[in-house]
């Protein structure tokens, strides 16, 4: 019985150490991050979004499902408290809202900064943190490992103060994205239950004319 326990303990320790080594390995530098990201062809993950502000006694919580197909297809589907879909492909970005029992296109608001961030998420998922012109990137090996992006110009700084991208232990997977607006206002998206490299229907990412 004691031997069995020892074997189990050693196995668990080996798994934890190997996982940590793997994690440390893929977050070591930009090249290792890019190489790990390129192994990810698709992602489906649930997410929880928490908006915090000084005036809130508790965060505003939203939840949904995130889909990604390399190199440029993304779908962010909010299921609560408000149903909405943000989808992106090579043609552009489209937002849909649930109104009168159906999804309708958002035709009013075009927040440039938000569009820049979403376009950049595409680059980040491809492991490319240097492609965007709006943010300077720095790798903090942690643990936990994270990438810190700071706006390069004043115009972008008006929208966002800083972006932190948490890297998961699993190679190529993002754990969280935290957008800081300044004055202690943040939006943190935490991803969980990620399944990688599964076939995802093309129509999830189609943009209606």
């Amino acid at each position, binding site marked *: 019985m004691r031997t069995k326990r020892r074997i189990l303990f050693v196995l668990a320790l080996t798994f934890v150490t190997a996982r940590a080594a793997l994690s440390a390995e893929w977050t070591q530098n930009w090249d290792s991050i890019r190489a790990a990201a390129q192994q990810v062809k698709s992602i489906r993950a649930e997410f929880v979004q928490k908006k915090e502000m000084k005036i809130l006694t508790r965060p*505003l919580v939203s939840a949904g499902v995130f889909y990604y197909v390399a190199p440029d297809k993304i779908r962010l589907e909010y299921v609560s408290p*408000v149903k909405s879909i943000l989808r992106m492909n090579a043609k552009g970005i489209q*937002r849909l*809202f649930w109104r009168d029992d159906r999804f309708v296109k958002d035709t009013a608001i075009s*927040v440039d900064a938000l569009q820049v961030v979403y376009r950049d998420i595409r680059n980040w998922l491809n492991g490319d943190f240097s492609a965007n012109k709006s943010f300077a990137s720095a790798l903090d090996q942690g643990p936990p490992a994270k990438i810190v992006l700071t706006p390069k110009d004043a115009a972008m700084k*008006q929208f966002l103060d800083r972006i932190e991208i948490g890297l998961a232990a699993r190679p190529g997977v993002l754990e969280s994205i935290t957008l800081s*607006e300044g004055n202690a206002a943040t939006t943190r998206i935490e991803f969980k239950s990620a399944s990688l490299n599964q076939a995802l229907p093309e129509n999830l990412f189609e943009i209606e004319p």
Partner: protein
Amino acid sequence: MSRRRRLLLAAWLLLAACLAISCATLGHLQRDKCPPAKTPCLAVFPHAAWRALHEIDVTAPFGKKTTLLGLTIGDPAARRLRAVLMTVEGLTLFDAVAGPEGVKIFRALPPFDAAAFSAGLLADVQAVFLPPPGALLEEGCLPDGRAACRFRTAAAGVAEIDDAPDGGRTLRIFCKGHRLIKEIDFAPPGKDGFSPTVAVKTRGALGYSLGLRLLEAESAAPVESVFAP
């Protein structure tokens, strides 16, 4: 007359025509044989300090549509409120406080950075959550028998609140010339004292509508810090 001037004149005439078509004016209130009001006139407004989150369906001029989240924190006794507008993705578009001491804007991203836009937005929020600021002018009933009361608005107009047939309330705001400029339908308040839905409609060529759906609400102590940056 140059082509440009003719075009401007035509546009101005069209705008004036649209405004004229959309006009509805303030009628007389009957004072005799009025049935009693179902609820007090100001029952739709929060009576104590509150914090509320709404989903807001916006239909902007020319039919453009979007949905936003609106967080409001208010203190009716001080007639002060903080209004925060966010995208569903959490980006704060607008954050301001309006009260007796004026307006303080903490954050305003385009197009909310335009003075007229933010003033209109805060006027809508105040109209939805705070009773009309002026004195009670008259009480009575409309020609169809619904009880109504009228108050002076900040802009020397009139705010009329009547008993809606569904048990809710309708607030109509008339400008100084007694022309209807804004109409707000409140669904009957729930147990928490808040209307689960509120519909705001403005009149005129650049009219827009807002559909508010209550997501959560709570009473909150009127702490001074919630009105600071």
